[in-house]
């Protein structure tokens, strides 16, 4: 077998049925084998960055490992943003890049780049395969590393001569072999007992659940644990859906744009149990004011997360699912108490609100709220990054894990469309909706063509406020409304600080998203008044296959609640509405 044949055979043995990629010079031998392997479907994206986000979306929605195949040089460097996105959100990916022949590595050959050097800080691990003999074990190890322990992306750099080389007796190993890599799965029983005891004593226990709950498949365990103990839970952006909205213990998302109930509960609690979360600054706000009076317990598979940001009294290293299963056994049932009533009051006193005046411009929150009416219970929602992302996190009624796909850690604009494509391909039959903004969608808009030709049925919602809304919001609140480079209609002769909010702005908005959709073979619909919103959603969700729905929304709308950067998370701004 050749190296290329070994690779494709290995992918099949790892259960890969779909991968994302783009061909090029040094990967020709691999694409030649793919040509003869119809059971392995490669989706040709229009950009390698989109291929990595698509593999990422596939992985987030299915729980399987996403796979990409790209060429060397620019093909490889285009995957960087996708790898970094997956790294920060702990998403299992295997990205295979071609490399120039081993004999010319280091000579600045055509399309040569040091992929291993470039990806070292943004991958869980990476490999340069130097001899074809190493290839089977490298692929086996790469998949094992990507999906075990704390998942993450693994880059494999494969020189052209290695994929062309012949190897006799190329047996694919049954087991990986990495003696230095042994993640801890089972939590220490003594620590679990200690936490059970702390729960028994606590008056105001609160859970902060993060993406680790999703990654370890512990959604069910989390709900059982919470229901046995009646402990309320805040869910980070990465964990939305792990506890269904409307559940009596649901506090919602905490942090900078978190709900009052979540932020107050985290501030007032006397026992904080962090589960599969890394206490990121967008969640904790100013650390001095974060859970100031609480005993902190932290359950995480990655020992380096424990104590990194928040001082921890009861650390438990282990797989969240395994630890929660043991913890459910160890804890005594707790009745509903005064703490539950307190959080219910916070929740009732601070509901998420907006006021859509039918005569005014469309509010983005209104569109998202209406989307709730049109989606199936099993729908997957993907977002891009910005105001629409926060509104989607707040206003979509999240029901189950792996159904809200968003770039949390890196905050990658352009993530949404390819991620939604990957999710739709990984979960055929499930409705997939992308909620994006006019800034973000343009960062990977070329993928509309990929959706069209492959009939990938993504329902694309573009909330067009004709500006970069989240930056506009910060400039308004913290930079005296000095609007710097946020208006997407701005021309060289525009007045400074206008932000496109002048009612008499004479400039047109480009591109015309409906025509862009149509040029790519997708139906496009547009609503400009509140009264048209339902009609556009009805037509969009009623159509077969991919469709783009554009909503011209009010551009001065801000995301509230909001905690300004550097403040404690109970110092909440509500704007006009809350």
């Amino acid at each position: 077998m050749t190296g290329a044949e070994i690779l494709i055979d290995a992918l099949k043995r790892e259960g890969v049925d779909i991968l994302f990629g783009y061909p090029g010079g040094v990967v020709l031998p691999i694409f030649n084998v793919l040509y003869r392997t119809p059971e392995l479907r490669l989706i040709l994206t229009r950009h390698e960055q989109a291929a990595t986000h698509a593999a990422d979306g596939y992985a987030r929605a299915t729980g399987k490992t996403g796979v990409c195949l790209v060429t060397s040089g620019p093909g490889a460097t285009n995957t960087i943003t996708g790898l970094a996105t997956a790294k920060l959100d702990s998403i299992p990916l295997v990205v295979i890049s071609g490399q120039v022949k081993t004999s010319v590595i280091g000579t600045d050959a055509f399309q040569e780049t040091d992929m291993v050097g470039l990806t070292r800080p943004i991958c869980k691990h990476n490999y340069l395969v130097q001899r074809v003999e190493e290839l089977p074990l490298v692929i086996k190890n790469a998949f094992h590393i990507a999906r075990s322990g704390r998942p993450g992306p693994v880059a494999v750099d494969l020189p052209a001569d290695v994929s062309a080389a012949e190897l006799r007796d190329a047996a694919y190993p049954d087991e990986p072999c990495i003696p230095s890599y042994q993640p801890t799965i089972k939590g220490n029983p003594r620590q679990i007992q200690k936490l059970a005891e702390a729960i028994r004593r606590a008056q105001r226990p609160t859970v902060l659940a993060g993406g680790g709950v999703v990654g370890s498949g512990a959604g069910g365990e989390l709900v059982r644990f919470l229901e046995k103990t009646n402990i309320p839970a805040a869910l980070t952006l990465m964990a939305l859906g792990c506890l269904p909205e409307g559940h009596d213990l649901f506090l919602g998302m905490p942090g900078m744009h978190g709900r009052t109930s979540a932020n107050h509960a985290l501030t007032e609690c006397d026992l904080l149990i962090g589960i599969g979360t890394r206490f990121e600054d967008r969640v904790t706000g100013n650390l001095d004011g974060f859970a100031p009076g609480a005993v902190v317990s932290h359950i995480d598979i990655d020992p380096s997360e424990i104590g990194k940001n928040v001082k921890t009294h009861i650390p438990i290293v282990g797989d969240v699912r395994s630890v929660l299963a043991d913890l459910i056994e160890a804890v005594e049932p707790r009745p509903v108490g005064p703490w539950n009533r307190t959080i219910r009051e916070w929740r009732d006193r601070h509901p998420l609100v907006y006021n859509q005046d039918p005569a005014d411009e469309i509010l983005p929150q209104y569109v998202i709220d209406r989307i709730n009416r049109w989606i199936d219970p099993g729908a997957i929602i993907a977002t891009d990054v910005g105001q629409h992302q926060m509104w989607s996190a707040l206003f979509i009624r999240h029901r189950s894990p792996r159904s809200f796909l968003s770039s949390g850690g890196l905050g990658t604009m352009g993530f949404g469309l390819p991620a939604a494509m990957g999710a739709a391909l990984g979960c055929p039959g499930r409705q997939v909706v992308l909620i994006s903004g006019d800034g973000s969608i343009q960062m990977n808009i070329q993928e509309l063509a990929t959706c069209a030709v492959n009939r990938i049925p993504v329902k694309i919602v573009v909330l067009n406020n004709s500006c970069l809304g989240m930056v506009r919001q910060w400039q308004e609140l913290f930079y005296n409304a000095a609007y710097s480079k946020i208006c997407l209609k701005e021309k060289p002769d525009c007045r400074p600080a206008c932000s496109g909010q002048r009612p008499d702005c004479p400039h047109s908005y480009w591109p015309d998203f409906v025509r862009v959709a149509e040029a790519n073979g997708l139906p496009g619909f547009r609503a400009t008044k509140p009264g048209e919103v339902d009609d556009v959603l009805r037509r969009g969700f009623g159509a077969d296959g991919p469709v783009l729905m554009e909503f011209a929304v009010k551009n001065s709308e801000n995301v509230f609640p909001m905690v300004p950067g550097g403040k404690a998370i109970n110092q909440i701004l509500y704007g006009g509405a809350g």
Partner: protein
Amino acid sequence: MKDKHTIMITVANRIGVLARIAGVLSSRGFNIESIIGWSTENTDVYQIHLVILGTPGEIEQITKQIHKLIDTIKVADISHKKKYIIYEFILIKVRTGRNRQEVLDLAAAFGAKVVDIARTAVRLDFGGPVHQVERFLDLMKPFGIKEFIRSGHIAVGP
């Protein structure tokens, strides 16, 4: 308080493993005081001893991050472990004139080896516990150190 910490690291002997460790340190803004690495009697295993400056919290985080590398087998901060011997070796060229005998006497007192005596300098070789090396260097400084090579900390456990 920031303190010098000697870290012993055992890793899989693979290309780029030193770069991975250096990357963990540099991406978190740490300066490496000294680093020394060698392949061991087991050719699959590579040993690194490094010295970094940091608070106990920073050092704990950095050792955890190094441990997280897939190729890392073992990491230990041995600075405050009593049973470890931490040594350093130096080669030093000291300026001498009329005070040559004084330099040679001090060298003899410390057990430093005189490798070469030239007209205006002597070259010495000294190794020992790190605090002794620091003391020796302090005493040599007033004479004028023309050149000075140090191995970085190396340590061995009980």
